[in-house]
Protein backbone atom coordinates (compact mmCIF):
# COMPACT_ATOMS: atom_id res chain seq x y z
CA UNK A 1 0.00 0.00 0.00
CA UNK A 2 1.15 3.50 -0.69
CA UNK A 3 1.69 6.23 1.87
CA UNK A 4 -1.46 7.98 0.65
CA UNK A 5 -3.56 4.84 1.11
CA UNK A 6 -2.18 4.41 4.63
CA UNK A 7 -2.90 8.05 5.32
CA UNK A 8 -6.52 7.58 4.17
CA UNK A 9 -6.91 4.68 6.57
CA UNK A 10 -5.42 6.77 9.37
CA UNK A 11 -7.81 9.68 8.85
CA UNK A 12 -10.89 7.44 8.58
CA UNK A 13 -9.92 5.53 11.74
CA UNK A 14 -9.49 8.84 13.57
CA UNK A 15 -13.06 9.82 12.71
CA UNK A 16 -14.48 6.44 13.75
CA UNK A 17 -12.53 6.60 17.02
CA UNK A 18 -13.80 10.10 17.79
CA UNK A 19 -17.44 9.14 17.11
CA UNK A 20 -17.34 6.10 19.40
CA UNK A 21 -15.17 7.35 22.22
CA UNK A 22 -17.12 10.56 22.83
CA UNK A 23 -20.16 8.32 23.57
CA UNK A 24 -18.45 6.41 26.40
CA UNK A 25 -19.73 7.58 29.83
CA UNK A 26 -17.35 9.10 32.42
CA UNK A 27 -17.66 6.20 34.85
CA UNK A 28 -16.10 3.89 32.27
CA UNK A 29 -13.22 6.19 31.42
CA UNK A 30 -10.66 4.47 33.64
CA UNK A 31 -11.31 1.00 32.16
CA UNK A 32 -11.40 2.67 28.73
CA UNK A 33 -7.99 4.16 29.32
CA UNK A 34 -6.42 0.87 30.32
CA UNK A 35 -8.26 -0.96 27.52
CA UNK A 36 -7.12 1.56 24.91
CA UNK A 37 -3.69 1.27 26.41
CA UNK A 38 -3.78 -2.47 25.83
CA UNK A 39 -4.77 -1.88 22.20
CA UNK A 40 -1.67 0.30 21.78
CA UNK A 41 0.26 -2.88 22.52
CA UNK A 42 -0.62 -3.78 18.92
CA UNK A 43 2.96 -2.60 18.45
CA UNK A 44 3.54 -6.23 19.39
CA UNK A 45 2.67 -7.08 15.78
CA UNK A 46 5.38 -4.78 14.56
CA UNK A 47 7.81 -6.52 16.90
CA UNK A 48 6.75 -9.93 15.59
CA UNK A 49 7.20 -8.85 11.98
CA UNK A 50 10.66 -7.44 12.71
CA UNK A 51 11.79 -10.53 14.64
CA UNK A 52 10.66 -12.62 11.69
CA UNK A 53 12.51 -10.36 9.28
CA UNK A 54 13.56 -11.81 6.00
CA UNK A 55 15.62 -14.64 7.41
CA UNK A 56 18.75 -12.51 7.34
CA UNK A 57 17.89 -10.68 10.54
CA UNK A 58 20.98 -9.45 12.37
CA UNK A 59 21.63 -10.38 15.99
CA UNK A 60 21.17 -6.79 17.13
CA UNK A 61 17.79 -6.52 15.39
CA UNK A 62 16.72 -9.82 16.95
CA UNK A 63 17.71 -8.67 20.43
CA UNK A 64 15.89 -5.36 19.98
CA UNK A 65 12.86 -7.18 18.61
CA UNK A 66 12.90 -9.62 21.53
CA UNK A 67 12.87 -6.81 24.10
CA UNK A 68 10.14 -5.06 22.11
CA UNK A 69 7.95 -8.20 22.14
CA UNK A 70 8.39 -8.56 25.91
CA UNK A 71 7.49 -4.91 26.53
CA UNK A 72 4.52 -4.92 24.15
CA UNK A 73 3.19 -8.17 25.65
CA UNK A 74 3.33 -6.70 29.16
CA UNK A 75 1.29 -3.77 27.84
CA UNK A 76 -1.29 -5.95 26.09
CA UNK A 77 -1.81 -8.65 28.71
CA UNK A 78 -1.61 -6.31 31.71
CA UNK A 79 -3.87 -3.69 30.13
CA UNK A 80 -6.66 -6.09 29.17
CA UNK A 81 -6.53 -7.85 32.54
CA UNK A 82 -6.71 -4.64 34.56
CA UNK A 83 -9.64 -3.46 32.42
CA UNK A 84 -11.35 -6.80 32.88
CA UNK A 85 -11.01 -6.68 36.66
CA UNK A 86 -12.49 -3.18 36.78
CA UNK A 87 -15.32 -3.91 34.35
CA UNK A 88 -16.22 -7.19 36.07
CA UNK A 89 -17.05 -5.10 39.17
CA UNK A 90 -19.53 -3.03 37.13
CA UNK A 91 -20.88 -5.89 35.07
CA UNK A 92 -21.46 -8.15 38.05
CA UNK A 93 -24.25 -5.91 39.30
Amino acid sequence: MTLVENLTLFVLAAFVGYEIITKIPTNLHTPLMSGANAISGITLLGSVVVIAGSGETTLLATVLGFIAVVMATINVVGGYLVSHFMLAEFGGQ
Partner: protein
Amino acid sequence: MVSVLEGLPQSGLELMYLVAAVMFIQGLRDMTHPRTAVRGNGLSAGGMALAVVVTVLYTGLFSLPLLGAALLIGTAVGVWLAVSVETTEMPQLVGLFNGFGGGASALVAGAELVDIAGPSSAALTVELTTTAAIAGIIGSVTLVGSFVAAGKLHGLVGDWPFDARLGHAIKAALFAVAVLAGLALVVRTALGTAPLAPWVPTYWLLVGAAALLGVVLVYPIGGADMPVVIALLNSYSGLAAATTGFVLNNTALIVAGTLVGASGLILTVIMCESMNRSLTNVLFGGLGGSESSEDQPDIYEGNITETSPEEVTMMLEVADRVVIVPGYGMAVAQAQHAVADLAATLADNGVDVEFGIHPVAGRMPGHMNALLAEADVHYEKMRELEEVNPTFSETDVVLITGANDVVNPSANEDSDSPIAGMPVLEVWDAGSVIVNKRSLSHGFAGIPNPLFAKSNTSMLFGDAKDSMQELLAQYQEATE
Protein backbone atom coordinates in the same frame (compact mmCIF):
# COMPACT_ATOMS: atom_id res chain seq x y z
CA MET B 1 11.88 -20.31 8.73
CA VAL B 2 8.98 -21.42 6.57
CA SER B 3 5.59 -19.84 6.96
CA VAL B 4 2.81 -22.26 7.82
CA LEU B 5 0.46 -20.31 5.58
CA GLU B 6 2.99 -19.55 2.88
CA GLY B 7 0.77 -20.94 0.14
CA LEU B 8 -2.05 -18.51 0.96
CA PRO B 9 -2.26 -15.09 -0.68
CA GLN B 10 -1.19 -11.97 1.21
CA SER B 11 -4.76 -10.68 1.01
CA GLY B 12 -5.75 -13.37 3.53
CA LEU B 13 -3.58 -11.64 6.14
CA GLU B 14 -5.05 -8.26 5.25
CA LEU B 15 -8.54 -9.74 5.59
CA MET B 16 -7.76 -11.05 9.07
CA TYR B 17 -6.45 -7.60 10.00
CA LEU B 18 -9.78 -6.18 8.85
CA VAL B 19 -11.61 -8.63 11.13
CA ALA B 20 -9.33 -7.64 14.02
CA ALA B 21 -9.99 -3.94 13.34
CA VAL B 22 -13.75 -4.55 13.39
CA MET B 23 -13.36 -6.37 16.71
CA PHE B 24 -11.46 -3.41 18.18
CA ILE B 25 -14.11 -0.95 17.01
CA GLN B 26 -17.05 -3.07 18.18
CA GLY B 27 -15.18 -3.65 21.46
CA LEU B 28 -14.97 0.11 21.99
CA ARG B 29 -18.65 0.49 21.07
CA ASP B 30 -19.55 -2.03 23.79
CA MET B 31 -17.69 0.16 26.28
CA THR B 32 -20.48 2.74 25.99
CA HIS B 33 -22.48 0.83 28.63
CA PRO B 34 -21.35 -0.94 31.82
CA ARG B 35 -23.51 -3.99 30.99
CA THR B 36 -21.78 -4.68 27.69
CA ALA B 37 -18.34 -3.35 28.63
CA VAL B 38 -16.91 -6.70 29.82
CA ARG B 39 -17.90 -8.25 26.50
CA GLY B 40 -16.34 -5.30 24.66
CA ASN B 41 -13.04 -5.69 26.48
CA GLY B 42 -13.07 -9.40 25.67
CA LEU B 43 -13.84 -8.70 22.03
CA SER B 44 -10.98 -6.24 21.82
CA ALA B 45 -8.61 -8.77 23.45
CA GLY B 46 -9.84 -11.37 20.94
CA GLY B 47 -9.04 -9.00 18.08
CA MET B 48 -5.55 -8.62 19.47
CA ALA B 49 -5.09 -12.38 19.78
CA LEU B 50 -6.31 -12.88 16.20
CA ALA B 51 -3.98 -10.21 14.84
CA VAL B 52 -0.98 -11.68 16.67
CA VAL B 53 -1.73 -15.29 15.70
CA VAL B 54 -2.22 -14.60 11.98
CA THR B 55 0.90 -12.42 11.89
CA VAL B 56 2.94 -15.19 13.50
CA LEU B 57 1.52 -17.79 11.11
CA TYR B 58 2.11 -15.66 8.04
CA THR B 59 5.59 -14.49 8.92
CA GLY B 60 6.78 -18.02 9.55
CA LEU B 61 7.72 -17.43 13.15
CA PHE B 62 5.68 -20.38 14.28
CA SER B 63 8.76 -22.50 14.97
CA LEU B 64 10.73 -19.80 16.65
CA PRO B 65 11.12 -20.61 20.36
CA LEU B 66 12.45 -17.10 20.79
CA LEU B 67 9.05 -15.55 20.12
CA GLY B 68 7.39 -17.99 22.50
CA ALA B 69 9.88 -17.09 25.21
CA ALA B 70 9.33 -13.35 24.70
CA LEU B 71 5.55 -13.75 24.77
CA LEU B 72 5.77 -15.92 27.89
CA ILE B 73 7.98 -13.46 29.77
CA GLY B 74 5.77 -10.53 28.78
CA THR B 75 2.59 -12.38 29.76
CA ALA B 76 4.01 -13.42 33.12
CA VAL B 77 5.07 -9.87 33.99
CA GLY B 78 1.77 -8.40 32.73
CA VAL B 79 -0.37 -10.85 34.71
CA TRP B 80 1.74 -10.41 37.82
CA LEU B 81 1.45 -6.59 37.66
CA ALA B 82 -2.30 -6.67 36.93
CA VAL B 83 -3.08 -9.11 39.74
CA SER B 84 -0.88 -7.58 42.41
CA VAL B 85 -1.95 -3.94 42.02
CA GLU B 86 -4.38 -2.14 44.36
CA THR B 87 -7.30 -0.29 42.76
CA THR B 88 -5.93 2.97 44.18
CA GLU B 89 -2.69 2.41 42.25
CA MET B 90 -4.47 1.91 38.93
CA PRO B 91 -3.43 5.24 37.37
CA GLN B 92 0.29 4.62 37.82
CA LEU B 93 -0.07 1.06 36.53
CA VAL B 94 -1.84 2.32 33.39
CA GLY B 95 1.04 4.79 33.02
CA LEU B 96 3.60 2.03 33.37
CA PHE B 97 1.93 -0.24 30.77
CA ASN B 98 1.69 2.74 28.48
CA GLY B 99 5.42 3.32 28.75
CA PHE B 100 6.12 -0.27 27.74
CA GLY B 101 3.95 0.17 24.63
CA GLY B 102 5.78 3.34 23.62
CA GLY B 103 9.17 1.75 24.25
CA ALA B 104 8.26 -1.22 22.08
CA SER B 105 7.39 1.14 19.19
CA ALA B 106 10.74 2.91 19.40
CA LEU B 107 12.61 -0.41 19.54
CA VAL B 108 10.72 -1.87 16.59
CA ALA B 109 11.49 1.13 14.42
CA GLY B 110 15.14 0.86 15.49
CA ALA B 111 15.28 -2.86 14.81
CA GLU B 112 13.84 -2.30 11.35
CA LEU B 113 16.49 0.31 10.57
CA VAL B 114 19.28 -1.94 11.90
CA ASP B 115 17.89 -4.82 9.89
CA ILE B 116 17.64 -2.93 6.63
CA ALA B 117 21.01 -1.26 7.09
CA GLY B 118 22.52 -4.66 7.89
CA PRO B 119 23.64 -7.49 5.61
CA SER B 120 20.39 -7.64 3.65
CA SER B 121 20.96 -4.00 2.56
CA ALA B 122 17.43 -3.69 1.31
CA ALA B 123 16.49 -0.31 -0.06
CA LEU B 124 15.76 2.33 2.55
CA THR B 125 12.97 4.63 1.46
CA VAL B 126 12.35 8.16 2.62
CA GLU B 127 8.95 7.05 3.92
CA LEU B 128 10.59 4.38 6.04
CA THR B 129 13.19 6.58 7.69
CA THR B 130 10.70 9.42 8.21
CA THR B 131 8.23 7.22 10.00
CA ALA B 132 10.98 5.40 11.91
CA ALA B 133 12.26 8.75 13.18
CA ILE B 134 8.75 9.79 14.28
CA ALA B 135 8.11 6.44 15.98
CA GLY B 136 11.51 6.70 17.67
CA ILE B 137 10.85 10.18 19.06
CA ILE B 138 7.26 9.58 20.18
CA GLY B 139 8.01 6.09 21.50
CA SER B 140 11.00 7.20 23.57
CA VAL B 141 9.21 10.23 25.03
CA THR B 142 6.28 7.93 25.91
CA LEU B 143 8.48 5.27 27.49
CA VAL B 144 10.46 7.57 29.75
CA GLY B 145 7.71 10.16 30.31
CA SER B 146 5.26 7.47 31.41
CA PHE B 147 7.75 6.00 33.86
CA VAL B 148 8.36 9.44 35.38
CA ALA B 149 4.58 10.05 35.57
CA ALA B 150 4.00 6.68 37.26
CA GLY B 151 6.85 7.44 39.66
CA LYS B 152 5.26 10.78 40.54
CA LEU B 153 1.87 9.22 41.24
CA HIS B 154 3.56 6.55 43.32
CA GLY B 155 5.43 9.19 45.32
CA LEU B 156 8.86 8.04 44.11
CA VAL B 157 9.63 11.15 42.09
CA GLY B 158 9.71 14.54 43.79
CA ASP B 159 9.49 18.10 42.51
CA TRP B 160 11.58 19.58 39.71
CA PRO B 161 14.58 21.13 41.46
CA PHE B 162 15.51 23.62 38.74
CA ASP B 163 14.22 26.91 37.46
CA ALA B 164 11.23 26.59 35.11
CA ARG B 165 12.95 28.69 32.39
CA LEU B 166 16.00 26.42 32.49
CA GLY B 167 13.61 23.48 32.05
CA HIS B 168 12.06 25.09 28.96
CA ALA B 169 15.54 25.74 27.50
CA ILE B 170 16.59 22.11 28.05
CA LYS B 171 13.32 20.91 26.48
CA ALA B 172 13.89 23.07 23.40
CA ALA B 173 17.50 21.89 23.05
CA LEU B 174 16.64 18.19 23.39
CA PHE B 175 13.72 18.51 21.00
CA ALA B 176 16.03 20.21 18.49
CA VAL B 177 18.63 17.42 18.79
CA ALA B 178 15.99 14.71 18.29
CA VAL B 179 14.43 16.44 15.29
CA LEU B 180 17.81 17.22 13.69
CA ALA B 181 18.92 13.61 14.11
CA GLY B 182 15.65 12.53 12.47
CA LEU B 183 16.16 15.01 9.63
CA ALA B 184 19.74 13.77 9.13
CA LEU B 185 18.42 10.23 8.76
CA VAL B 186 15.79 11.30 6.23
CA VAL B 187 18.15 13.49 4.20
CA ARG B 188 20.76 10.74 4.01
CA THR B 189 18.11 8.33 2.81
CA ALA B 190 17.01 10.80 0.16
CA LEU B 191 20.61 11.20 -1.03
CA GLY B 192 21.00 7.44 -1.12
CA THR B 193 24.49 7.53 0.40
CA ALA B 194 26.15 4.13 0.87
CA PRO B 195 27.09 2.29 3.04
CA LEU B 196 23.99 2.19 5.18
CA ALA B 197 25.28 0.85 8.48
CA PRO B 198 26.90 4.07 9.83
CA TRP B 199 23.46 5.71 9.81
CA VAL B 200 22.13 3.69 12.65
CA PRO B 201 23.95 5.52 15.49
CA THR B 202 22.08 8.66 14.43
CA TYR B 203 18.86 6.83 15.28
CA TRP B 204 20.12 6.02 18.78
CA LEU B 205 21.15 9.65 19.25
CA LEU B 206 17.54 10.53 18.38
CA VAL B 207 16.22 7.96 20.85
CA GLY B 208 18.54 9.19 23.61
CA ALA B 209 17.57 12.84 23.15
CA ALA B 210 13.86 11.96 23.03
CA ALA B 211 14.17 9.85 26.20
CA LEU B 212 15.78 12.75 28.08
CA LEU B 213 13.07 15.00 26.65
CA GLY B 214 10.51 12.65 28.22
CA VAL B 215 12.11 13.21 31.64
CA VAL B 216 12.29 16.99 31.31
CA LEU B 217 8.73 17.22 29.95
CA VAL B 218 7.05 15.29 32.76
CA TYR B 219 9.30 15.91 35.78
CA PRO B 220 8.19 19.53 36.44
CA ILE B 221 4.44 18.76 36.15
CA GLY B 222 2.56 18.56 39.44
CA GLY B 223 1.24 15.26 40.79
CA ALA B 224 -2.40 16.34 40.44
CA ASP B 225 -1.98 16.80 36.70
CA MET B 226 -0.34 13.40 36.20
CA PRO B 227 -3.53 11.60 35.05
CA VAL B 228 -3.87 14.18 32.25
CA VAL B 229 -0.25 13.52 31.30
CA ILE B 230 -0.87 9.77 31.32
CA ALA B 231 -3.89 10.16 29.04
CA LEU B 232 -1.83 12.34 26.72
CA LEU B 233 1.05 9.86 26.68
CA ASN B 234 -1.48 7.09 26.02
CA SER B 235 -2.55 9.06 22.98
CA TYR B 236 1.12 9.41 21.94
CA SER B 237 1.75 5.69 22.32
CA GLY B 238 -1.21 5.03 20.04
CA LEU B 239 0.17 7.48 17.50
CA ALA B 240 3.58 5.83 17.82
CA ALA B 241 1.97 2.46 17.04
CA ALA B 242 0.17 4.00 14.04
CA THR B 243 3.46 5.48 12.85
CA THR B 244 5.14 2.09 13.18
CA GLY B 245 2.27 0.84 11.03
CA PHE B 246 3.34 3.29 8.34
CA VAL B 247 6.95 2.05 8.64
CA LEU B 248 5.99 -1.60 8.33
CA ASN B 249 3.06 -0.97 5.99
CA ASN B 250 0.76 -2.77 8.42
CA THR B 251 -2.95 -1.82 8.43
CA ALA B 252 -3.73 -3.41 11.80
CA LEU B 253 -1.16 -1.17 13.46
CA ILE B 254 -2.47 1.93 11.71
CA VAL B 255 -6.15 1.39 12.61
CA ALA B 256 -5.59 0.25 16.21
CA GLY B 257 -2.95 2.89 16.89
CA THR B 258 -5.21 5.63 15.56
CA LEU B 259 -8.13 4.48 17.75
CA VAL B 260 -5.87 4.69 20.81
CA GLY B 261 -4.54 8.07 19.73
CA ALA B 262 -8.11 9.40 19.44
CA SER B 263 -9.24 7.96 22.77
CA GLY B 264 -6.22 9.34 24.64
CA LEU B 265 -6.70 12.77 23.13
CA ILE B 266 -10.42 12.87 23.94
CA LEU B 267 -9.81 11.75 27.55
CA THR B 268 -7.12 14.40 27.90
CA VAL B 269 -9.51 17.12 26.76
CA ILE B 270 -12.31 15.84 29.04
CA MET B 271 -10.00 15.80 32.06
CA CYS B 272 -8.75 19.30 31.34
CA GLU B 273 -12.36 20.53 31.08
CA SER B 274 -13.33 18.83 34.35
CA MET B 275 -10.55 20.70 36.10
CA ASN B 276 -11.04 23.88 34.08
CA ARG B 277 -7.40 23.74 33.00
CA SER B 278 -6.00 24.26 29.56
CA LEU B 279 -3.60 21.68 28.21
CA THR B 280 -0.84 24.30 27.89
CA ASN B 281 -1.43 25.17 31.53
CA VAL B 282 -1.06 21.54 32.58
CA LEU B 283 2.09 21.07 30.53
CA PHE B 284 3.86 24.33 31.19
CA GLY B 285 2.34 26.07 34.20
CA GLY B 286 1.85 25.19 37.83
CA LEU B 287 -1.46 25.45 39.65
CA GLY B 288 -0.28 28.25 41.93
CA GLY B 289 -1.54 28.79 45.42
CA SER B 290 1.45 29.20 47.68
CA GLU B 291 0.69 32.91 48.02
CA SER B 292 -2.99 32.42 48.79
CA SER B 293 -2.17 29.99 51.60
CA GLU B 294 -1.43 33.05 53.71
CA ASP B 295 -5.15 33.83 53.74
CA GLN B 296 -5.94 30.50 55.32
CA PRO B 297 -6.09 31.51 59.01
CA ASP B 298 -8.34 34.49 58.19
CA ILE B 299 -10.85 32.32 56.40
CA TYR B 300 -10.96 29.53 58.92
CA GLU B 301 -10.40 31.33 62.24
CA GLY B 302 -13.41 31.20 64.52
CA ASN B 303 -15.60 29.78 61.77
CA ILE B 304 -14.80 26.08 62.06
CA THR B 305 -17.38 23.83 63.71
CA GLU B 306 -15.99 20.51 64.83
CA THR B 307 -18.27 17.53 65.17
CA SER B 308 -18.11 13.94 66.42
CA PRO B 309 -19.36 10.58 65.14
CA GLU B 310 -22.10 10.72 67.82
CA GLU B 311 -23.42 14.03 66.49
CA VAL B 312 -23.23 12.90 62.89
CA THR B 313 -25.14 9.73 63.83
CA MET B 314 -27.93 11.87 65.25
CA MET B 315 -28.13 13.84 62.01
CA LEU B 316 -28.19 10.64 59.96
CA GLU B 317 -30.96 9.16 62.11
CA VAL B 318 -33.39 11.92 61.16
CA ALA B 319 -32.24 12.29 57.53
CA ASP B 320 -34.44 11.24 54.61
CA ARG B 321 -31.85 11.82 51.92
CA VAL B 322 -28.06 11.53 52.25
CA VAL B 323 -25.47 12.13 49.52
CA ILE B 324 -21.96 10.78 50.05
CA VAL B 325 -19.14 12.60 48.24
CA PRO B 326 -15.99 10.47 48.12
CA GLY B 327 -12.55 11.77 47.16
CA TYR B 328 -9.03 10.53 46.73
CA GLY B 329 -8.45 10.71 50.51
CA MET B 330 -11.07 8.00 50.91
CA ALA B 331 -9.28 5.85 48.33
CA VAL B 332 -5.89 6.32 49.99
CA ALA B 333 -7.35 5.35 53.37
CA GLN B 334 -8.91 2.26 51.71
CA ALA B 335 -12.21 3.40 53.22
CA GLN B 336 -14.42 2.47 50.25
CA HIS B 337 -15.68 -0.71 51.94
CA ALA B 338 -16.54 1.13 55.18
CA VAL B 339 -18.29 3.85 53.16
CA ALA B 340 -20.20 1.26 51.11
CA ASP B 341 -21.27 -0.55 54.30
CA LEU B 342 -22.49 2.71 55.82
CA ALA B 343 -24.45 3.52 52.65
CA ALA B 344 -26.01 0.03 52.63
CA THR B 345 -27.02 0.30 56.30
CA LEU B 346 -28.56 3.74 55.72
CA ALA B 347 -30.49 2.36 52.75
CA ASP B 348 -31.72 -0.58 54.86
CA ASN B 349 -33.19 1.98 57.25
CA GLY B 350 -35.15 3.62 54.45
CA VAL B 351 -32.79 6.52 53.82
CA ASP B 352 -32.39 7.62 50.19
CA VAL B 353 -28.60 7.33 49.74
CA GLU B 354 -26.67 8.30 46.66
CA PHE B 355 -23.05 8.99 45.77
CA GLY B 356 -22.08 12.29 44.17
CA ILE B 357 -19.03 11.75 42.00
CA HIS B 358 -16.94 14.47 40.45
CA PRO B 359 -15.52 13.61 37.01
CA VAL B 360 -11.96 13.69 38.33
CA ALA B 361 -12.64 12.38 41.85
CA GLY B 362 -9.89 9.91 42.59
CA ARG B 363 -7.15 10.23 40.06
CA MET B 364 -8.73 9.63 36.67
CA PRO B 365 -12.24 10.05 35.27
CA GLY B 366 -14.20 7.04 36.44
CA HIS B 367 -11.50 5.96 38.89
CA MET B 368 -13.82 6.56 41.87
CA ASN B 369 -16.60 4.58 40.19
CA ALA B 370 -14.24 1.64 39.80
CA LEU B 371 -13.18 1.88 43.45
CA LEU B 372 -16.78 1.99 44.69
CA ALA B 373 -17.89 -0.78 42.35
CA GLU B 374 -15.16 -2.89 43.89
CA ALA B 375 -16.83 -2.28 47.26
CA ASP B 376 -20.21 -3.42 45.80
CA VAL B 377 -21.79 0.01 45.50
CA HIS B 378 -24.43 -0.31 42.81
CA TYR B 379 -23.75 1.47 39.53
CA GLU B 380 -27.20 3.15 39.67
CA LYS B 381 -26.33 4.80 43.01
CA MET B 382 -23.37 6.72 41.59
CA ARG B 383 -24.48 10.09 40.29
CA GLU B 384 -22.47 12.33 38.04
CA LEU B 385 -21.98 16.01 38.73
CA GLU B 386 -24.74 17.37 36.46
CA GLU B 387 -27.24 14.85 37.82
CA VAL B 388 -26.53 15.32 41.51
CA ASN B 389 -26.04 19.10 41.71
CA PRO B 390 -29.76 20.03 41.39
CA THR B 391 -30.65 17.52 44.14
CA PHE B 392 -28.48 19.00 46.91
CA SER B 393 -31.20 21.49 47.93
CA GLU B 394 -33.45 18.51 48.74
CA THR B 395 -30.68 16.66 50.59
CA ASP B 396 -30.62 16.60 54.39
CA VAL B 397 -27.02 15.53 54.93
CA VAL B 398 -24.01 15.57 52.63
CA LEU B 399 -21.14 13.44 53.87
CA ILE B 400 -17.85 14.39 52.24
CA THR B 401 -14.98 12.01 52.85
CA GLY B 402 -11.49 12.63 51.56
CA ALA B 403 -12.62 15.16 48.94
CA ASN B 404 -11.54 18.78 48.95
CA ASP B 405 -11.10 20.79 45.75
CA VAL B 406 -14.12 19.24 44.02
CA VAL B 407 -16.44 20.80 46.66
CA ASN B 408 -14.74 24.21 46.83
CA PRO B 409 -17.25 27.07 46.37
CA SER B 410 -14.41 29.39 45.26
CA ALA B 411 -14.76 27.82 41.83
CA ASN B 412 -18.18 29.52 41.52
CA GLU B 413 -17.74 32.59 43.73
CA ASP B 414 -14.18 33.83 43.34
CA SER B 415 -13.19 34.76 39.79
CA ASP B 416 -9.55 35.24 40.89
CA SER B 417 -9.26 31.74 42.29
CA PRO B 418 -6.95 29.31 40.45
CA ILE B 419 -9.89 26.94 40.17
CA ALA B 420 -12.41 29.61 39.05
CA GLY B 421 -14.91 28.12 36.63
CA MET B 422 -14.05 24.52 37.46
CA PRO B 423 -17.24 22.45 37.69
CA VAL B 424 -17.73 21.51 41.37
CA LEU B 425 -20.27 19.62 43.47
CA GLU B 426 -22.52 22.29 45.00
CA VAL B 427 -22.85 20.55 48.35
CA TRP B 428 -23.44 23.75 50.34
CA ASP B 429 -27.08 23.81 49.18
CA ALA B 430 -27.81 20.83 51.44
CA GLY B 431 -29.23 21.06 54.98
CA SER B 432 -26.06 19.93 56.72
CA VAL B 433 -22.59 19.33 55.32
CA ILE B 434 -20.20 16.99 57.11
CA VAL B 435 -16.59 17.13 55.95
CA ASN B 436 -14.47 14.18 56.98
CA LYS B 437 -10.79 15.10 56.60
CA ARG B 438 -7.66 14.59 58.62
CA SER B 439 -6.89 18.30 58.94
CA LEU B 440 -7.65 21.66 57.33
CA SER B 441 -4.80 21.13 54.87
CA HIS B 442 -5.07 22.01 51.18
CA GLY B 443 -6.07 19.66 48.41
CA PHE B 444 -4.21 19.36 45.12
CA ALA B 445 -5.09 22.90 44.09
CA GLY B 446 -3.20 24.27 47.10
CA ILE B 447 -5.92 26.75 48.08
CA PRO B 448 -8.15 27.09 51.18
CA ASN B 449 -11.75 25.90 50.99
CA PRO B 450 -14.37 28.41 52.25
CA LEU B 451 -16.85 25.51 52.49
CA PHE B 452 -15.20 24.44 55.75
CA ALA B 453 -16.09 27.80 57.31
CA LYS B 454 -19.75 27.87 56.22
CA SER B 455 -22.41 27.88 58.94
CA ASN B 456 -24.02 24.61 57.85
CA THR B 457 -20.67 22.79 57.62
CA SER B 458 -19.20 20.66 60.42
CA MET B 459 -15.75 19.11 60.33
CA LEU B 460 -15.33 15.49 61.29
CA PHE B 461 -11.57 15.26 61.70
CA GLY B 462 -9.90 11.88 61.31
CA ASP B 463 -8.75 9.15 58.97
CA ALA B 464 -11.49 8.26 56.47
CA LYS B 465 -11.53 4.55 57.28
CA ASP B 466 -11.53 4.97 61.07
CA SER B 467 -14.17 7.71 60.90
CA MET B 468 -16.50 5.74 58.60
CA GLN B 469 -16.17 2.56 60.66
CA GLU B 470 -16.86 4.51 63.85
CA LEU B 471 -19.83 6.20 62.20
CA LEU B 472 -21.20 2.86 61.01
CA ALA B 473 -20.85 1.28 64.47
CA GLN B 474 -22.58 4.25 66.15
CA TYR B 475 -25.37 4.32 63.60
CA GLN B 476 -26.02 0.58 63.83
CA GLU B 477 -26.16 0.82 67.61
CA ALA B 478 -28.56 3.76 67.50
CA THR B 479 -30.97 2.23 65.01
CA GLU B 480 -31.14 -1.29 66.39
